[in-house]
């Protein structure tokens, strides 16, 4: 990873102060609460849920790639592990949803850590291909181990999460799409908060040091291996959580949903949004989830547009949406300052 990959990162001093940040979080929470009221049809609510899931996948990946500098092309594998582990526990062994969820998240996290341990000496493109190979193997296992995963036959009729019963309130059913959105978006927000805290803490600085120059970091006494494994574990655990929600939302599980192409789409979301920031992947995930839906009217051309969009961003605005936004704001500020008082017609 080089600095050229992050042209848009703000210097530490420019990042928002703690008090301001709390307002942003409140705003985000309010936005989440209001969205289902604007989008009342089930088609758009479905899209909102998919957005929330993709946000989780993207920020998890960005933590690994953008912050720890580990080129991970295997995010689809962790997504799939979370989905299959939790679903199989629920449907085969009758494990209650939230325990199964926990297991799914833990196992994905462990898988991520194992991959990282295995690949600990690998860098750059080797790591990329190793993670890709891992993703292919996981996909093939899901596909071929029919006795356990049902393989291409698929698992159908997966129930949504069980209703939440808070004493004094009516039960919250998750068959209701608005409620399911609140659940997934709520988790996405929690994941974001977690990562944000990590990034701003000394851990974040450690990861940055490892990303920029691993040799120097090691000479400072940093245990690079341990931190890389940690970052991988966190990012993959979040992907696992996304997988659990995916399964209970779609109701159908087939191995092809976790083909390696998914890894690429998630990476695209990170890049288009702005790698190395946290808000970037959120924007990228939302944009790249909503864009194909909005473009459905164009029919066959929509995926072409998708591909072209990714290329254009990379070529002309590598910092993604975050960079574009920052440049626009900076440009506006400059213009405002430059306008002389009482300018003529």
């Amino acid at each position: 990873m080089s600095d050229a990959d992050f042209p848009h990162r703000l210097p530490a001093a420019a990042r928002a102060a703690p008090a301001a940040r709390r307002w942003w979080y409140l705003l985000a929470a309010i936005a989440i609460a209001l969205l289902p009221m604007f989008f009342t049809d089930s088609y758009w609510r479905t899209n909102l849920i998919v957005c929330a899931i993709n946000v989780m996948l993207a920020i998890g990946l960005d933590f690994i790639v953008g912050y720890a500098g580990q080129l991970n092309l295997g995010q689809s594998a962790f997504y799939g592990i979370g989905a299959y582990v939790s679903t199989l526990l629920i449907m085969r062994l009758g494990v209650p949803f939230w325990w199964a969820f926990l297991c799914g998240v833990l196992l994905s996290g462990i898988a991520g850590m194992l991959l990282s341990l295995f690949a600990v000496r690998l860098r750059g493109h080797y790591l990329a291909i190793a993670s890709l190979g891992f993703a292919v193997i996981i996909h093939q296992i899901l596909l071929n181990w029919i006795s356990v995963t049902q393989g291409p036959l698929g698992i159908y009729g997966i129930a949504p999460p069980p209703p939440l019963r808070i004493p004094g309130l009516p039960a919250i059913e998750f068959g209701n799409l608005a409620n399911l959105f609140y659940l997934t978006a709520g988790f996405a927000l929690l994941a974001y908060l977690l990562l944000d805290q990590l990034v701003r803490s000394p851990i974040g600085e450690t990861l940055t040091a490892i990303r920029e120059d691993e040799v120097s970091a090691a000479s400072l006494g940093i245990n690079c291996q341990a931190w890389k494994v940690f970052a991988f574990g966190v990012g993959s655990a979040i992907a696992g959580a996304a997988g659990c929600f995916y399964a209970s939302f779609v109701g159908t599980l087939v191995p092809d949903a976790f083909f390696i192409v998914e890894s690429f789409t998630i990476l695209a979301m990170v890049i288009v949004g702005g790698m190395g920031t946290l808000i970037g992947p959120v924007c990228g995930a939302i944009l790249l989830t909503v864009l194909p839906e909005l473009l459905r009217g164009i029919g066959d051309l929509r995926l072409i547009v998708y591909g072209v969009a990714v290329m254009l961003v990379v070529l002309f605005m590598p910092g993604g949406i975050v960079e574009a936004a920052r440049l626009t704001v900076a440009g506006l500020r400059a213009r405002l300052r430059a306008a002389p008082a009482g300018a003529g017609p």
Partner: protein
Amino acid sequence: MLTVVLQQGINGIVVGSLYVLVALGLTLIYGVLVQINFAHADIVTLGAFAAYFFVHLFGGNYLLSIAVALAVGGALGWVMNAGIFAPLRERGSELLPLIATIGASIMLENAMLAWFGPIPYAFETPYSNHVIRVAGMFFTMQSVLIIVVSTTTIGLLYGFMKFTFLGKALRAVSQDRETAGLMGINPNKLIMLTFVIASALAGMAGAMLGPVLVLTPFAGTSVIVKAFAIVIIGGFGNVEGTIIAGLLVGLIESYTTQFLEPGLIDIVVFALLLLTLAVRPTGLVAEKREENV
């Protein structure tokens, strides 16, 4: 039984040599540029379609269509380098070209889908159904052609890399770009040449794969993931290694099909990949390369 084992060996080498052609392009690009071109698969597919239309639409000779595909591939390589890799190289970015090629791949596949449609094309050549039977085994002329063309091409490429000035210059650039520049070699021109050669190889592979594969816009993707594995197992940038690894993967395919299940092919190949990475990440065939893995 012996016949079957021998036959599968030949099948493996035929398939393997096609994989080698595809993987060689990837390894050449990586060797010189330390970059992966994810759209390489689509160059293969486009080469196949170019050859198909040359034969079936314009009534051209099949052997000539291989040359056509070669040219188409080379042209595409030129475009990709000029459009994606060169501009991004100036910025010094490592990861972004990869993403750009992913975008390019999505765009190309869907553009092909829009132009050519999703229905598989039946690419017939005068050789694909001409069967020769010898000693209880069978070969199609197409497979003979594949072996002849692949071997010749690989041999030519190998000779080029080892014995000509341009080839040596290429290897110099891949080892140390700055020093090569200081020696009077223009790295940018050489990188362009590499791209063109690599993509031309891919196009040619496409023309020969066309009659063998199920020809749809997604035909290349079925090959590319294995090509990546081959490149790693053989060693990034290592031409001999890629050749050996490619043939090895081809043989793994046919013997796994014979003695296990076709469905297990990918698992065996990728387990080998991970094993290579664990034990000897620079590739199974050693080359004197200083590289920070």
